[in-house]
């Protein structure tokens, strides 16, 4: 079997310019089935722009985008619902695709907001709305999920649960995920491929490779590169009930 069959979206040297200023330039990446690709980088480094290039929202771009799926779920970074629209969570769930009631209920239960099903979208808190956005994106069982800061505003325990959910979705649906996240812990522990952006691709590779990279250290500081070693450290031994440390 051709390995290319697993590719869902591929960017070749892509870039986007607005008002004669490059927002991002020379990005090449590919998202494959069942893999999580994460974009990290400081504010204004072009993470959301890269996601929008991959989604085809920006059309006049440099380079090329090849998309091999049309079943896409998107959680945008910013979304504001106009109060002139009377729209309930239930109406929002079927915004881009008609879904069965079971599919809606299942997705809302997974993100823990089934009780909000008949509430007006305008009355939700930031965290609640974020959970609804994620539920909407996964409910249509997409082949490609693009998540732009999907857990912003979600409480701490919820954040961990949602990241676990995202990981689970990628396994069960075998879908590819393009994730933008500020949470380096999550990025480094649950991701297959990391791309570090700062207007261009600084470095990319597996989390281990990236954490060792000097440019990554320069961008995020020495602390950040130790997140990974801490994370790995957690897994090279176990603590027994007696308090002894046992090597794996």
């Amino acid at each position: 079997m051709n390995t290319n069959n697993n590719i869902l979206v591929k960017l070749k040297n892509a870039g986007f310019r607005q008002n004669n200023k490059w927002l991002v330039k020379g990005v090449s990446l590919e998202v494959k089935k069942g893999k999580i690709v994460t974009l990290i980088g400081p504010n204004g480094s072009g993470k959301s722009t890269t996601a929008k290039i991959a989604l085809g929202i920006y059309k006049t771009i440099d380079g090329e985008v090849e998309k091999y799926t049309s079943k896409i779920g998107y959680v945008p970074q910013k979304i504001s619902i106009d109060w002139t629209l009377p729209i309930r969570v239930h109406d929002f769930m079927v915004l881009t695709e008609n879904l069965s009631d079971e599919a809606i209920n299942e997705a809302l239960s997974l993100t823990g907001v089934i009780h909000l099903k008949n509430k007006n979208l305008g009355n939700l808190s930031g965290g609640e709305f974020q959970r609804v956005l994620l539920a909407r994106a996964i409910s249509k069982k997409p082949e490609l999920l693009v998540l732009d800061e999907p857990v912003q505003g979600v409480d701490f325990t919820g954040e961990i649960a949602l990241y676990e959910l995202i990981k689970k979705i990628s396994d069960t649906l075998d879908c590819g995920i393009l994730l933008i996240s500020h949470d380096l812990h999550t990025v480094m522990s649950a991701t297959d491929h990391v791309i570090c952006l700062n207007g261009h691709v600084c470095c990319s590779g597996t989390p281990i490779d990236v954490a060792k990279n000097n440019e990554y250290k320069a961008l995020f500081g020495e602390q950040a590169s130790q997140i990974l070693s801490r994370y790995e450290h957690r897994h090279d031994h176990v603590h027994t009930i007696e308090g002894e440390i046992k090597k794996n």
Partner: protein
Amino acid sequence: MLDDFFIRALIAGLGVAIVTGPLGCFVVWRRLSYFGDTLAHSALLGVTLAYTMEFNIAFSVFIISSLIALTLIQLQKRTNLPGDALLGLLAHSSLAIGLVVIGFLSFIRFDIMGLLFGDILAVTVEDLLIIWIGGALILLVLKLIWKPLFASTVNYELAEAEGLNPDRAKAIFTILMAAIIAISIKMVGLLLITGMLIIPAAMARNISDSPIKMVTYSIIGGLLSVIIGLFTSLEFNTSSGPSIIAASLFLFILSLLNIKQSIKLKN
């Protein structure tokens, strides 16, 4: 039965209301009321053209309004002027040109008041056919583009990202706006068509919590406005357009009472 001018007006008005209901909701949601006004003002030019060339009025208004809508889209792309300035420019210049052209057509007896405010006496059996067939087509097309149009009204990028082609839906919707103005101009008159689009939808907003409900109430509100408006128009010998719009305002005020009640309930 169709010999009676009042029955004809009633059938025409009800047909218009069924179509303005859902279109009006999108006008409110997408904040297009001034866009509707501009198309309606340009309709006068379409009417004069119809008289000069002996076209059908609805057809000629549809062509001119569509042209104005396309011009607007081009101007938005090519100039740095804000949208409302461009709308004002197109609305008033096309209205002015229409009025100037009327001045040249002194050999034709013109009922300006009828054009501006609607004239129930003027509705013919041919108009009924145009309203009901045209209206059915508009609703059919609106149903076909409902998903992308509504999704992009909520959030353009979501609709675009998930493959719904919102730009095409928006362009088709613009044409539908020109079409509804074309078929309703005789009933409501060109100064008041936007009212027929907005007021029932605004009334519906006050009493609904979902998009489908708002569309339904908007249609019902429009139908009631036409019935109440036309009977008053008959009774007091007033122009049909203003009477219908006044009736819809009355319903809007009633819907405000509902808001007050629901706020009280919440507290």
